[in-house]
């Protein structure tokens, strides 16, 4: 049990007693998980925390499906020519891998799970602004994904996740399902983003000024802006593609007088900001992890906060860097390339500030911190290679090769997925009231890190040597690297399955977690674990300190007396666990 210090004020008594009563036996206390266990109470919940958990389950299943498809792709690529499937099947497998991973997994991931669960509590609110719309967005997401998957029943979806025209218009009925499904699922993203923006603007607790918001909230805010502004564009693109198939309106198909490159412009105008939807929340998780596990306020709070907004804004101006070889003018390409370099700057600011947060901090290595450190390494590689691809001459050589595949896996998986895992481990005690096994956590992180690099670093080499992406067959000289990559995917899969295993195990047999195992000082840690029912807080918090003011959080470290705060850097003992 964390120490309450030698002297207690009446406030401390109140906190201590309420904490003691509910902490003594957290599993028995009434919390948001156990107050009503019926299926109906879950399926019809408007509680942001329950909705977050429903998203967690569904998104994890999507990750499993997409992951299995990835393993199948890699097994096929063990040898040139046919290994386990023919080329028609292969094209569908990698297309579905991309579609499921992008639309069903990574776009919702951190915002829908951690954003939904943590953000309202971090700002001191009772719930999001529109709880019913929150529930609606979950069901809209599920329906959208089902519609996309139904496409497979009607034909071959083998266009790649980017479904470029005119080929995508020629695959027949499946495109109708894919476009409708993506359109519907897009609404889930829009509704969530809209909900979060209004929540952050209107529902902050008294004293929670913009400059006291945790950086995770700033990141979710920037992400939500991108979601609201960018997703409608993919929506209309899907509508136009649908209408072109049904009414032959002639907008993208050259045979009808349209322009296929116009589709690419429309598609990437959303899909580039979409990758910032994927990474900005991960940056937010990183800020939280770095602050807590270095016991220091994030260096350059304002820079980190505003860099999220800058990335969100600049992200709308670089879509053409996906189209350097599509025939756009040299002038356009140069401008897109320059702005692509610019985006590196706010991103670099974040990385430097996180490293600076660790400097002279009290670094505490726990599983979430291991993921954060992995992120620093893996995302930096991903980010640098992105800038490399932004160099026009280099991109001509590397476009549509495995180099691009490696780049985006480093940022999406080495970045977002690693941060998501770190965040899930970090907030796991708060969400479930249980602690997972720390040793297994570290082993799994190690397996993931090694497996990931084995899988994808080899792909940088493959790409720079000329291996094209989405190819079923390849020259014999690439075989060894492909095999290395495939073995890496097995190590990676092992690590991920291990994570799933011990997390699920902890639900049944894990030790009960204390309210604040990491001794963090953002608002979500000030209440009991798991969050009680019916409200996130016993009474509305009034905030008088910043989100990372460890020196001003007496309930974490205790008073020294006379109201003075402790000078000494607090020691880091192991998280207290209940017997």
């Amino acid at each position, binding site marked *: 049990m964390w120490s309450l210090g030698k002297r207690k004020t009446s406030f401390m008594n109140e906190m201590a007693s309420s904490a003691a009563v509910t902490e003594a036996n957290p599993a028995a206390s009434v919390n948001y998980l156990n107050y009503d266990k019926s299926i109906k109470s879950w399926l019809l919940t408007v509680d942001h925390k329950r909705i977050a958990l429903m998203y967690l389950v569904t998104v994890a299943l999507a990750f499993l499906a997409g992951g299995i498809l990835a393993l199948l792709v890699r097994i096929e690529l063990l040898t040139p020519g046919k290994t386990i499937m023919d080329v028609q099947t292969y094209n569908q497998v990698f297309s579905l891998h991309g579609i499921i991973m992008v639309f069903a997994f990574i776009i919702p991931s951190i915002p829908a799970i951690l954003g939904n669960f943590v953000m309202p509590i971090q700002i001191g609110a009772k719930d999001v602004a529109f709880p019913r719309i929150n529930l609606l967005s979950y069901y809209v997401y599920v329906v959208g994904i089902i519609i996309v998957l139904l496409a497979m029943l009607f034909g071959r979806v083998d266009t790649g996740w980017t479904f470029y025209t005119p080929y995508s218009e020629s695959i027949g009925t499946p495109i109708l399902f894919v476009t409708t499904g993506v359109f519907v699922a897009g609404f889930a993203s829009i509704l969530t983003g809209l909900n979060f923006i209004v929540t952050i*603007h209107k529902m902050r607790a008294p004293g929670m000024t913009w400059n006291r918001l945790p950086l995770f909230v700033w990141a979710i805010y920037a992400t939500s802006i991108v979601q609201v502004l960018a997703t409608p564009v993919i929506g209309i693109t899907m509508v136009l593609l649908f209408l072109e198939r049904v009414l032959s309106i002639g907008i993208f198909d050259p045979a009808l007088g*349209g322009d296929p490159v116009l589709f690419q412009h429309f598609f990437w105008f959303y899909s580039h900001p979409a990758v910032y939807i994927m990474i900005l929340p991960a940056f937010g998780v990183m800020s939280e992890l770095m602050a807590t596990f270095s016991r220091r306020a994030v260096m350059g709070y304002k820079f980190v906060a505003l860099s999220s907004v800058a990335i969100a804004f600049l992200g709308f101006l670089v879509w053409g860097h996906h189209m350097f070889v599509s025939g756009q003018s040299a002038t356009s390409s140069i401008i897109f390339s320059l702005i692509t370099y610019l985006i590196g700057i706010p991103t670099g600011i974040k990385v430097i500030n996180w490293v600076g947060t660790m400097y002279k901090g009290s670094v505490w290595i726990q599983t979430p911190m291991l993921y954060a450190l992995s992120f620093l390494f893996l995302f930096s590689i991903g980010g640098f290679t992105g800038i490399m691809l932004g160099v026009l001459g280099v991109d001509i050589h590397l476009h549509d090769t495995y180099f691009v595949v490696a780049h985006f896996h480093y940022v999406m998986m080495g970045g977002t997925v690693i941060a998501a895992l770190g965040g899930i481990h970090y907030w796991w005690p708060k969400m479930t009231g249980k602690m997972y096994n720390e040793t297994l956590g570290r082993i799994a992180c190690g397996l993931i890190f090694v497996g990931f690099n084995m899988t994808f670093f080899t792909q940088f080499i493959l790409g720079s040597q000329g291996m094209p992406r989405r190819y079923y067959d390849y020259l014999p000289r690439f075989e060894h690297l492909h095999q290395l990559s495939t073995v890496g995917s097995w190590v990676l899969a092992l690590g991920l399955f291990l994570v799933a295993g011990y997390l699920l195990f902890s639900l049944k047999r894990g030790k009960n977690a204390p309210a604040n195992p990491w001794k963090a000082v953002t608002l979500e840690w000030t209440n009991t674990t798991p969050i009680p029912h019916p409200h996130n807080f016993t009474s509305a918090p009034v905030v008088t300190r910043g989100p990372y003011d460890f020196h001003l959080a007496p309930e974490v470290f205790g008073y020294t007396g006379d109201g003075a705060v402790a000078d000494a850097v607090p020691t880091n003992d192991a998280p207290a666990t209940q017997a």
Partner: protein
Amino acid sequence: MATSTTTAQVDSNHPTHLQHHFVSSEQQFDASKMGMWLFLITELLLFSGMFVAYTVFRVWHPEVFDHSADLLDWRLGGLNTLVLLASSFTVALGIHYIQIGNKKATVVNLIITIVCAAIFMTIKYHEYTGKFEHGIFPGGHFHPHEAFAQYNVPYAAQFFSVYFVMTGIHGFHVLVGMGLLTWLTIRTARGDFSPEYYTPIELTGLYWHLVDIIWVFLFPLLYLI
């Protein structure tokens, strides 16, 4: 003190429309309006894709677009514009009347708004069927009849595709608006709204203004230039 606790709870006899996660009616109303504005921005972006398609094809084939626009009757389009503008006025009046508690005037104004919307859709129906009778369909089905052979040039199909898609999606939004306004009229007549709580009318009014302003841009771009 780092974080102290105060009682900022809602008292037990709060108005029925106040939802539990909000502290006050003002906060709820403000949040609802902000949410609606954000949704309207997404609608605007949805239409913007089509405006971009229009611009791109127009820049590539200016004479074709110019010429094809002659087939659209600007007087019908202009009448539609006036009708929609009037309907925006009446919905705003409806909001004004509920703000001062005049339920009856609100219902009357909402009904006039719906009637205006119906007039708009009727005129559009006549325009569309007129086009279909002359063989002018979107895109691949574009086969103008003999009398309009001079309009059967390459890329004219694109103009009409853009015309049908843009006005079609706009018309769909008008229909949805009519549905919402009907539901609102029923609720107002039932007494669900008062000067303290008329948020749904305000939000639907905002939606209706957006539908109107999109038409205000569609009309000159398609009919006049």
